[in-house]
């Protein structure tokens, strides 16, 4: 009975919109053609999607973004966690300070980085000039725009990865380490054969949470490059938003969104089943 409001809420504002989204994706709806311009077109939008070069480009961008941000944030976060996993005076306060980027309003962050990465007066190029690197066009060159977005995301979310893995490291049992050190294992062996396997469940959850969020990337791109130059940094969400709002075709926008949904859920289900299996074992 207590559960009912929650279930109803999800049916109304979770499941229903999704089904409705699939329904919309089977329609031809052009807002510009006046109100009520709508007809059923079956799978036509999907056929269009498979031939849509721009969709595949944005899909590629999204995957490049997800894989590189999750991978790099994981490596950086783990490195930081391993180095800083020790008693340090005042370390706790610094850890709290470190997490701040992950909590900030993404549009404000995106805007901040537009200033920092500005090619003519941004501090980033100023810092690089100390080591003799000439000014870089971070956000306004097609070759670097996606990379710059990745950089911003790394800034935002590496602290999260770091704290997550650090907490995981501190929860590991100490005795297996002592045994290994007595047996004369090298630091690398300890890391490879004890730390990593023990940390594995935490790693999976951390990467899953990041990947799910990364697939949705929108805010940062919207305020920094708006997908440009051209479509060099456009994500699937950006494209769907542009189709629906700028080009006013709701039907086709829904089709793009449905495809993204199918992909995220597939990835999510694979991961979740792994996590569930591990929880059942534990």
């Amino acid at each position, binding site marked *: 009975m207590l*559960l009912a409001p929650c279930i109803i*809420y999800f049916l109304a504002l979770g499941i229903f*919109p999704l089904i409705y989204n699939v329904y919309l994706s089977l329609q031809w709806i052009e807002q510009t053609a006046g109100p009520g311009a709508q007809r059923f077109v079956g799978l036509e939008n999907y056929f269009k999607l498979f031939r849509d070069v721009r969709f595949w480009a944005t899909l590629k961008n999204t995957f490049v973004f997800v894989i590189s941000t999750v991978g790099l944030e994981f490596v950086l976060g783990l490195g930081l966690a391993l180095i800083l996993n020790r008693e*340090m005076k005042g370390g706790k306060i610094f850890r709290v300070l470190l997490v701040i980027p992950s909590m900030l309003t993404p549009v*404000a962050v995106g805007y901040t980085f537009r200033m920092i990465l500005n090619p003519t007066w941004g501090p980033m190029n100023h810092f690089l000039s100390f080591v003799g690197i000439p000014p870089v066009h971070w956000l306004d060159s097609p070759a670097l725009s996606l990379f710059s977005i990745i950089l911003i995301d790394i800034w935002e979310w590496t*602290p999260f990865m770091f*704290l997550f893995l650090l907490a995981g490291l501190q929860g590991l049992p100490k005795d297996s380490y002592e045994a290994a050190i007595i047996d004369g294992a090298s630091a690398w062996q300890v890391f490879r054969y004890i730390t990593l396997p023990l940390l594995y469940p935490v790693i999976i959850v951390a990467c899953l949470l990041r990947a799910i969020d990364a697939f949705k990337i929108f805010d940062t791109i919207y305020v920094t490059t*708006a997908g440009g130059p051209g479509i060099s940094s456009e994500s699937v969400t950006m494209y769907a938003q542009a189709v629906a709002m700028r080009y006013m075709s709701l039907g086709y926008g829904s089709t793009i969104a449905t495809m993204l949904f199918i992909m995220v859920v597939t990835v999510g289900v694979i991961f979740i089943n792994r996590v569930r299996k591990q929880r059942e074992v534990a």
Partner: protein
Amino acid sequence: MITSRKFLDIFAWIVLIVALFAFLFPIWWTITTSFKNPRDITTWPPPYIPFLDFEPTLSAWKSIFGGPGQIGTGGHSGSLIFRTVTNSLIIGVSSTALAITIGSLAAYSLARFKFKRWKNDDIAFWILSNKFFPPVAMVLPFFVIFKTLNMLDTLQAVILVHTAMNLPFVVWMMREFFLELPREVEESAMIDGCSVFGVLRRVVLPLAAPSLATVAVFCFIFSWNELLFALFLTFSKAQTLPMLIAGETHTGSPLWWLISAVSTVAIIPPILLTTLVQKYIIKGLTWGAVKG
């Protein structure tokens, strides 16, 4: 051995300081830029330290709050920032309250009662899976639904949607909490003649208050930061703070000092709230997967 340990300690401190600089510098930059004169923004080398590198001024702040700043042209009118901040606050607080109420009731029942048809775990995972839906797959239907209901550009629409966005988090976190809570206290209250609601109100609620507060803080921050839904569902009256910032960057040449001031307004609540719940921050961020 001792020297190598000492070396590692120093190394750790250096890494920590470099990391702190890298992760906090952009925040410093935003805040200081909001105190710069327009001419101090595009100079080279970039000025970093107020009073030393540049003469700080309040003009950006005056003009976003509607005062007669010297750079008034194209700036925000005072009522605009007040309105968007008020909107964001109302949306954040109401959607958080709704999500906490509905979500913790569901969480409590999932943790305490057995349901016949489905396993409790399955229901919990189903609720969790709602979080994985990409928002863009929901936002177009929301747009059409609220348009039909004539609710576009209303606070209520955004509140409803943000509640749905935060519910999985609340249910998941509070379920973990209730599962850890010893049953005995509730059972003895039941024996003493308390109804289910009596137990909830007199026993469970006081015990759950700290966790509820933490979860609420996270919900508020998520709602405060959200852009995509607000972008589709509102355009003027119910505009939120992130939209104000996002809208500003698309104008021809952005008024950096003004947006910096508005951005500073936007990032203050998350920073304050983060330090407020610092003890539970890891637990909250990791959906309870790791207890920090």
